[in-house]
């Protein structure tokens, strides 16, 4: 009798232990390669902090406003085009019409997208991408990955970025140097756009790596569900 209750108690303790371990390991369900990712993140901090970020900051501080706005709009127009493709892939005709209308308007009348006439006319900007389409199709996000210089992603979203590289018109420009300059400016623009959010992360986070990871994953989940994600599972 006594032995039985003892073994039962041990079994219960073991179950509790496993459950607790499962709970405390919750973040790594999303990030099974955390040690590798953290190493990547450390590399990123050095390269980004010493090279990329200062250039992006100088760009924001010294490049003429008109130029910055033009660049933002030009790449925004490409984003709209990507968004349109993904609206179609997700069978969202209303959004597709919206985004296609934006691309046509801004390309034809906004100097190949340098001016965002559609926004001025009140047509809201879409933000669908291939990662979201995969999510919409039910493909799980897969492990979280941190790529130095490029930043946070997941297997699903990273695959989406590769598909995007092939779908982007810039990839089809024959002149290599023009193509590379455009990729470079696009990257600079994207990095500059992240500067403000980054300074908030600096203020708010205890551990930047963890903070960025959770914010990224929450944001992606939200986008996949078009702003109506299912309530998070309470793991307690």
């Amino acid at each position, binding site marked *: 009798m006594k032995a039985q209750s003892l073994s039962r108690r041990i079994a219960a303790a073991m179950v509790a232990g496993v459950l607790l371990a499962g709970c405390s390991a919750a973040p790594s369900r999303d990030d099974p390669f955390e040690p590798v990712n953290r190493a990547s993140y450390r590399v990123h901090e050095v390269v980004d902090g010493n090279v990329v970020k200062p250039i992006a900051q100088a760009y924001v501080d010294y490049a003429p406003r008109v130029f910055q706005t033009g660049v*933002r709009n030009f790449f925004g127009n490409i984003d709209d085009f990507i968004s349109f493709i993904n609206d179609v892939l997700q069978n969202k005709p209303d959004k597709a019409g919206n985004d296609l209308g934006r691309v046509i308007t801004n390309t034809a009348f906004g100097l190949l997208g340098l001016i965002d006439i559609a926004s001025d006319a009140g047509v809201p*900007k879409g933000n669908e991408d291939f990662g979201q389409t995969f999510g919409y199709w039910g493909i799980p996000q897969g492990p979280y990955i941190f790529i130095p210089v490029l930043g946070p992603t997941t297997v699903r979203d990273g695959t989406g970025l590769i598909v995007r590289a092939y779908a982007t018109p810039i990839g089809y420009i024959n002149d290599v140097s023009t193509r590379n300059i455009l990729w470079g400016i696009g990257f600079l623009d994207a990095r500059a756009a992240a500067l403000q959010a980054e300074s908030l992360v600096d203020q*708010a986070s*205890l551990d930047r790596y963890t*903070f960025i990871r959770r914010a990224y994953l929450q*944001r992606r989940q*939200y986008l996949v569900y078009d702003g109506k994600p299912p309530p998070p599972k309470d793991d307690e």
Partner: protein
Amino acid sequence: MTMMTTAPATAGAFRRSGSGPFGRMLGGAAALALACASAPAAAQEAPDALVKRVSQEAIEIIKTDPQVQAGDSARIRELIETKLTPHFDIERMTALAAGRTYRTATPEQKKRLGDEFKSLLIRTYSSALRQYREQTIDYKPLKLDAGATEATVRTEVVRPGQPPVQIDYSMGKTPDGWKAYDVIVGGVSLVTNYRDEFSEQVRAGGIDGLLKSLAAKNAGAR
């Protein structure tokens, strides 16, 4: 709002002074009378109205206060402490962010955790306010049942040439009026983000480790 905050305090004073059953009854009656008197005021300020009023007041100050315009950190901090944090349920936020750890913490640890978390939020908000640019906020109307004690107030921030950003406030009804216990910016919940951060610190160094890193972060305030 001011009526709401004074009512419970006065009632408490009554209750403490009355030692016998009569005193307690008197205290109870006084509290009831005060509660009745302040009830209409509380009923008027629905959660969505509160969010709108507080946001607009804050934006007005940001736009007009010369010290804030000059980036005076102390003034910005003071503004947040007097205008914004009273409308946050810091205790509930802390409990949600710390999860299991909070339930096992001593009252003293809970208090320190709440204080440190509050400082961290003020610090983060200061940084956000300093980045404030011209923008319009669209306040979504809220459908609220009569007896509701929980609500999500939805707003949308529109900046020219950029996709709009949804900012939602999870709010709960408290004796001092509605208070926010989470802010969700573009799908990123503040509390959920801190849950990961806190549990990581607790795993590494227990609740004291968490308190220590929070204190260190706040001490490094700029």
